[in-house]
């Protein structure tokens, strides 16, 4: 899939979702910890560091921790 078509797909997904306004008092579910993008920050840090060290890719929402990662 080319970058152009991927971008179009992602934007289309956002625009074509038929959003309905959710008032602040209706957001109890969205505020649950399991609905956050990273429910466990320490786990996310560790995972990102391991994957950074063992794979050629990093960045975006799956970025890595510090250090060389040479091994």
């Amino acid at each position, binding site marked *: 899939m080319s970058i152009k078509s991927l971008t179009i797909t*992602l934007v289309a997904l956002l625009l074509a979702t038929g959003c309905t306004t959710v008032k602040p008092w209706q957001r109890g579910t969205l505020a*649950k910890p399991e*609905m956050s993008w990273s429910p466990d920050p320490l786990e996310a840090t*560790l995972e*990102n560091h391991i994957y950074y060290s063992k794979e*050629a890719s990093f960045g975006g929402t*799956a970025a890595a921790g510090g250090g060389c990662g040479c091994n």
Partner: protein
Amino acid sequence: MSAVMKNLARSALAVPGMVSVAQAAAPAEAETGYRFTYYSEDDSPASRSDGGAQERYKIQVHQFYLMMPFGDHMSWDIETSFESMSGASPAYTYKDDEDVTRVYMSGASTERRFDLYGSGRYYWSEAEAGATAGFSTERDYTAFFAGTDGSIQLNEQMTTISGGLSAGYDILNPTQDFSGDQQQQANTPGRFAAKGESIWQVSAYEGVGQVIDMNTVVQAGISVTHKNGYLSDPYREYAGAEVPYDIRPDNRTLLTLSGGARRYFPGPDAALHADVRFLVDTWDIFSSTWEVAWYQNYAPNWNWFVDNAIDFQLVPKLRYYQQTEAYFYEIPDHGVADPYYTADTTTYYSSDPRLSKYGALSIGLSLKTDFRQFSWTIGGERYAANPAYGFNGDEETPGLVSFWRLTTGLDYRF
């Protein structure tokens, strides 16, 4: 080298209101947490390793986290980790006289790494901004970084626009050989070439998050990272070769596109996480990462459990990753007469398995138990990389890693 990416990750994770989609306000309570991880890589395959099977890395990781509100509109947090590791790692891969792919493992070594990050955030009613700085240090590598990020909610707080900028500077000091330059070059040519070298990098992230309905939120983001400096692996060498066995371009630019969704299902009281990331870079690597996780809640309705606020959360995860190879990746044939390696630093080559065409599968399972203000977590992961998982049936890559990981820890809110 990668410390700056951590800050970028924080920006990216903050896109549609990472902590809470329901409000853009400073956290009401403090939180602290500790994690211990034992990480163990499978031994290198005996049939493909010089000198038979060798024990690869075993790592123990201690992590600590503290987040405190500061007044009505601010918070600060620190995060630190300490790692101790030992074991051998692949130094280079080659084809022998019989065209069998073999991996030469470095001697077992013991290393330690420490990092510390601190950040502060300010919250408005519909926006927030933060700044982060930190460092990572180990015997042969020191990294510094700083960054800033922010987000604003629009469209009746249904849409969140966020962005982040980070910069980092790394210093390499891989050689511990204090003999003369000529001897260092002969004994440790890779490390000698990297002596005193540095890397700088800058990253930018832009994202948009959207609340779809009472149970669904999605996000999309784009990031660009540019790295400049000594990007070769100094440990890919052979004593006596006099030239490094790994020479890479001194520039790399990476572009990522990512998307994600969170959907809550009231019936089973569970949440589905789905994330995808695509990456392209100037080393001709294209990769995609796909992740799904299911957060299943269970709260027993018995008096003792209710009185003590005890509930459980079981989280199975599945991750798939695949990448193409870097344009300078090659497994040299040591059976030919002409030497493959050269002192010409503009001729790029590397047999690093992490730059090959392969795929990786990972499955994980964790259990979180809440007890009043405490949460105890235990979980494990199995990760396996293989050329076949990346639709590469032509090559063997014996240096690719497979590992087990066990993590447990405690969180406390006050």
